[in-house]
């Protein structure tokens, strides 16, 4: 991501209503009579202490702010596919988004990461992820059977998916917004033993086998990547000042929304991972991520995704965190896929938010 803008200052709307505020510009009314409650009915217990969350959106015991459904959501469309999308610690809202789908043996993982100094990037990223997923739902075309034509046909689908995501981003914004929203986009489609993937920006797709070396499938569109291409070691490049400035994105001012596309054959059991930089900031190299998969101590993707998010938060949680996982090569023994078609069923208390209306 581009370097973060300072957290948005509270809007000082009080000045029209209260003459005191004209002379006290930093004195903002935080609650007014008649304000709508911050959360709807049917609230989940406090994540911190298990206490009851009040109408005002805060725990009645420990005062912790209850996360909105946009701040933290989870999906598990099949026992072998799951994702967790989380606000992290340092950011005031979750501008990451994901959208997952499973159809039989086929899995689609989409991750978008909203650019943090833009207006409504949380709305835009979720809209983009959902729109791109819809394009990737049907099986990929086989072309004329020869590898070249398959590749061309798949590239066309991914390009359409990126275009649909881009269109969705543009539709979230009025023309006159000075800082229009934008986001990254990665997608991974597992069909049989083949992984097709594409990327724009610096979210990533990894293939992480249980045994042997893993690999970063996508290539970042970032200043860090430019440095890496120029010969700078990855660790050094990713720590550089402009590392997180992205060179391609979805959104109004994007120079180009054609993704870089690729494919790889799965040779053994392991995990397909799509994630935002909120995770890979703390474990960029495949072996570092493989170590965390091990550390999760589970063969269940939802548990592993939860562990990876917790790992990123424990490491500082400087950015929003998205982890989407699909088991490849071999299903875990206890899980047999029964349903032929299942969409993103939800896990836990936090359903996937729709349309971003519930943010903020």
């Amino acid at each position, binding site marked *: 991501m581009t370097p973060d803008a*300072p*957290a948005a*200052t*509270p809007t000082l709307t009080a000045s029209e209503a*209260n*003459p*005191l505020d*004209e*002379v*006290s*510009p*930093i*004195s*903002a*009314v*935080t*609650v*007014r*009579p008649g304000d709508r409650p911050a959360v709807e009915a049917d609230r989940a217990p406090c994540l911190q*202490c298990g206490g009851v969350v*009040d109408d*005002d959106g*805060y*725990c*009645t*015991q*420990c*005062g*912790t*702010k209850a996360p909105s459904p946009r701040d933290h959501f989870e999906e598990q469309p099949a026992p072998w596919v799951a994702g967790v999308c989380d606000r*992290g*610690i*340092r*950011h*005031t809202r979750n501008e990451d988004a994901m959208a997952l789908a499973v159809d039989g043996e086929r899995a689609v993982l989409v991750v978008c990461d909203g650019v943090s100094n833009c207006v409504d990037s949380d709305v835009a990223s979720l809209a983009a992820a959902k729109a791109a997923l819809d394009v990737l739902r049907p099986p990929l075309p086989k072309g004329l059977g020869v590898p070249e034509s398959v590749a061309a046909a798949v590239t066309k689908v991914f390009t359409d998916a990126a275009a649909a995501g881009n269109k969705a981003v543009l539709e979230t914004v009025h023309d006159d917004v000075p800082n229009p929203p934008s986001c990254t986009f990665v997608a991974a489609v597992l069909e049989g033993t083949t992984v097709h993937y594409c990327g724009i920006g610096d979210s990533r797709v990894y293939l992480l086998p249980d045994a042997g070396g893993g690999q970063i499938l996508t290539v970042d569109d970032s200043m860090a990547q430019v440095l890496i291409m120029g010969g700078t070691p990855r660790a050094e490049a990713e720590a550089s000042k402009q590392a997180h400035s992205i060179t391609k994105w979805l959104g109004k001012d994007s120079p180009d929304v054609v993704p870089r596309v690729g494919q790889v054959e799965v040779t053994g059991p392991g995990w397909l991972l799509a994630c935002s930089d909120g995770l890979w900031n703390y474990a960029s190299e495949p072996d570092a991520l493989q170590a965390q998969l091990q550390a999760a101590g589970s063969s269940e993707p939802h548990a592993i995704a939860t562990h990876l998010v917790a790992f990123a938060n424990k490491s500082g*949680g400087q950015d929003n965190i998205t982890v989407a996982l699909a088991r490849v090569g071999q299903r875990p023994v206890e899980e047999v896929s029964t349903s032929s078609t299942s969409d993103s069923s939800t896990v836990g208390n936090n359903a996937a938010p729709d349309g971003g209306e519930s943010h903020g």
Partner: protein
Amino acid sequence: MADFSAAVYQNEFLPDGGTDVHAIVTIECSGAGTAGQTGSGAAGEIIIIDTSGSMGQSAMAAAKHAAQAAVNEIVDGTYFAVISGNGAAFLAYPLVNSGPAMVPMSDATRAEAIDAISRLRSGGGTEISTWLDMAGVLFTSVPQVIQRHAILLTDGENNEPDQVLDEAIARATGYYQCDCRGVGVDWKVEEIRRIAQALLGTVDIIPSEAQMAAEFEAMMQKSMARGVADAQLRVWTPQGAQILFVRQVSPTVEDLTSRRTAVNDLTGAYPTGAWADESRDYHVAIRLAAKDVGQEQLAARVQLAIGEEVKAQGLVKAKWSDDSELTTRIDQQVAHYTGQTELAEAIQEGLAAKAAGNEELATTKLGRAVQLAKETGNDEATSKLRKVVDIDDEDAGTVRLKKSVEKADEMALDTASTKTTRVRK
């Protein structure tokens, strides 16, 4: 039915490791109606007049006139009584020996009371504890009265050990409210302020006898406008949090911290007394365990409750941030009232030092008061300070104690020390 609203002014951003949250909560009441007329219960007023021997003929005449003026302001139907106080307390009106010792106001009882007041004579000492206790007894005799208010006038020092007065104050605390006025310069501000603060009332000096009637009239009018009999300020804080203080800061500074009663494990209630259509500001300071940067939590729910019903709520928040531009700001309201609270302390400590003969400390404290009065725009305090000190440099707080000071001016400065101004417009 009265409406309450709450607004919170604060900088909710705390630096990494920051623990202390300050907020000003403004509670505003509208549609309060008239005391005893809102259907929630009857109101009662007691006028307590000092009739000790120190009250000279003209002072006594002025006091009677003032008491009569106050009686005239009492709304029909309000239960009332008049106490004449010296070394003991006497029921001046109504003239009863048993049963209810307060009567509803009507044309007839008003005329009777005015006549009874005109017959009062002065003599004897000043034992205020007996006055306070009698007021309590009178209110107890009319259980239908739920809103209890008294006006107390004195002209001299109390002739009782402090402890005796304090015990009487304690018996009255939480039962009735009392506004106190001193006439002349022979009474002690500190003593009478103790009564007024405990009984959620005001204290002031009436410098001249001629002003007495107008002052009593105004006091009674204010009391009659309080249509909300009693309300509590409730403060919820999260588990493990510590309340550093809860203060009323407008219209006057009153520290309520020690007056907390527990509502439940996490919520305490503080007395606020009766309300008219008015707005009061409260300064709440909470200490929390620091959370990680980016985390947000509630530091306090500040509520105005009548009985068990919460009528208004303001949320005091804490958000930890590493953006020093956000975290280093001090909310202007918080800064203003912090200054005004220090101003009240500086004036009281300065005058106490002066009375004790410590001129150096008095000069320092009153100098600081001059500086704070300027900074916070409290012009009334500045003009009252000018009568006690010569100001060399207002901004630096350099002052000299005046050679000769009118005692009344010093007392006026003292009684007004807790009055605050709102943020300058």
